[in-house]
């Protein structure tokens, strides 16, 4: 695909931003190219997060966390991408701003007390647990203790993936690495894991990155990739097992 990741440094010099963006809208809206939809989402993700930061500071949160605002902002962004008329004179940011802010306002205002207790961070954890329990619960596990051990090991891989992002890594390194050798060892494992994530099949890699690094729920990832939530769960489970296998063999 010519529009995704320019193939050469020289192309980066001559490609015009406005034409590139128009090309993405044209290929998504006219040709139904879902990949372009994802590129547009990534292109405007920071914009959605900027609005989320602002709304989180401004609005009473009613017990919601920042990550809940982020999820609602992502929902608004996806709706805006799907509904935007690329031939209109309106800029996408102007169009999307109302959708994103509206999504957060509606989401927070209409959520019940029960919903507020079930925050996005819990949904992320529940997504992961459900996905990994499918694998840990199969008949190949001799005892329930083995199943539990399997589940714990897979969840640990998820914790390690989260540490791959630099800011999270620094937090962990400051708090929990007791000595130089272990710190070095931890970094080696992290680097290896980072390499293995990059080698995952494209869709699995996308699910891992979006879930662990961008804090997107399986439901949102499913909407973005036009897959079912169940399929996202399967891809997540397969990726974690693959990564665990790679780390175990070291």
């Amino acid at each position, binding site marked *: 695909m*010519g529009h995704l990741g320019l193939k050469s440094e020289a*192309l980066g010099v*001559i490609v015009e931003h406005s034409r590139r963006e*128009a090309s993405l809208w*044209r290929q998504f809206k006219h040709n139904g190219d879902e990949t372009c939809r994802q590129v547009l989402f990534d292109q405007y993700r920071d914009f959605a997060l900027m609005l989320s930061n602002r709304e989180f500071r401004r609005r009473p949160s009613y017990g919601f966390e920042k990550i809940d605002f982020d999820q609602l902002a992502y929902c608004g962004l996806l709706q805006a991408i799907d509904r935007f008329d690329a031939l209109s004179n309106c800029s996408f940011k102007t169009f999307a701003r109302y959708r994103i802010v509206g999504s957060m306002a509606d989401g927070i205002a209409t959520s019940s007390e029960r919903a507020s207790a079930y925050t996005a961070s819990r949904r992320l954890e529940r997504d992961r647990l459900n996905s990994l329990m499918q694998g840990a619960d199969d008949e190949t596990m001799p005892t329930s203790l083995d199943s539990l051990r399997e589940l714990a090991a897979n969840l640990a891989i998820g914790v390690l993936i989260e540490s791959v992002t630099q800011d999270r890594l620094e937090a962990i390194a400051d708090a929990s690495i007791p000595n130089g050798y272990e710190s070095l060892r931890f970094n080696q494992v992290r680097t290896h894991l980072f390499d293995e994530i990059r080698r995952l099949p494209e869709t699995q890699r996308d699910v891992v990155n979006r879930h662990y690094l961008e804090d997107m729920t399986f439901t949102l990832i499913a909407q973005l990739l036009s897959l079912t939530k169940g399929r996202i769960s399967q891809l997540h489970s397969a990726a974690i097992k693959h990564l665990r296998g790679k780390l175990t063999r070291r």
Partner: protein
Amino acid sequence: MSDMIDDENMQALLEKLADPALDDEAILNEVLLKYPEDPRLHFLKGSTFAGSGRLIEAHTALSHAVKLAPDFHIARFQLGFFQLTSGESDNALKTWARLDGLPKDHYLRIFVIGLRHLIRDELPECDEMLKKGISLNTENPPLNTDMELIISQIRPLMEGKESSEAGAPGSEADIAEAEASLTSILLQQSNTTKH
């Protein structure tokens, strides 16, 4: 009624389009009602849209011009160039493929060879071919301006330096210059598409 606008009316049309007080799109739409199959009018419409930042419509109009006249070489070249500068290098290569049928020393064919080198980051070869194309092109001077702009844009890369602000792509002046040339090329090309 002829499918193609005659030279006299084409010249009158171009003069109208050069008048900033008139609505280019309305003028073109009116003429297109009479000559919907004239690829040069669609090419002009694409150029007009590109100039006003309506880039999706510009692509549609340029594509339609090439569809109507597959051997409208300059339109084909410009469509590919539009795709290339939109980040669609694969589509640009497909669009340009037919230009391989041009004579070996035709400037458009040489420009395409140069731009293929650019896509592969083969910058000295790109530079050489674009300069060769410029030396061969005597019928469309505005196109040489576009290619000289590319040469100036890749020079910092060839020298291993960051591009300066003034030479950065997409500056208002660069875009205006490139789009002006798209239209003015038609003045040179208006007779070459009739077959």
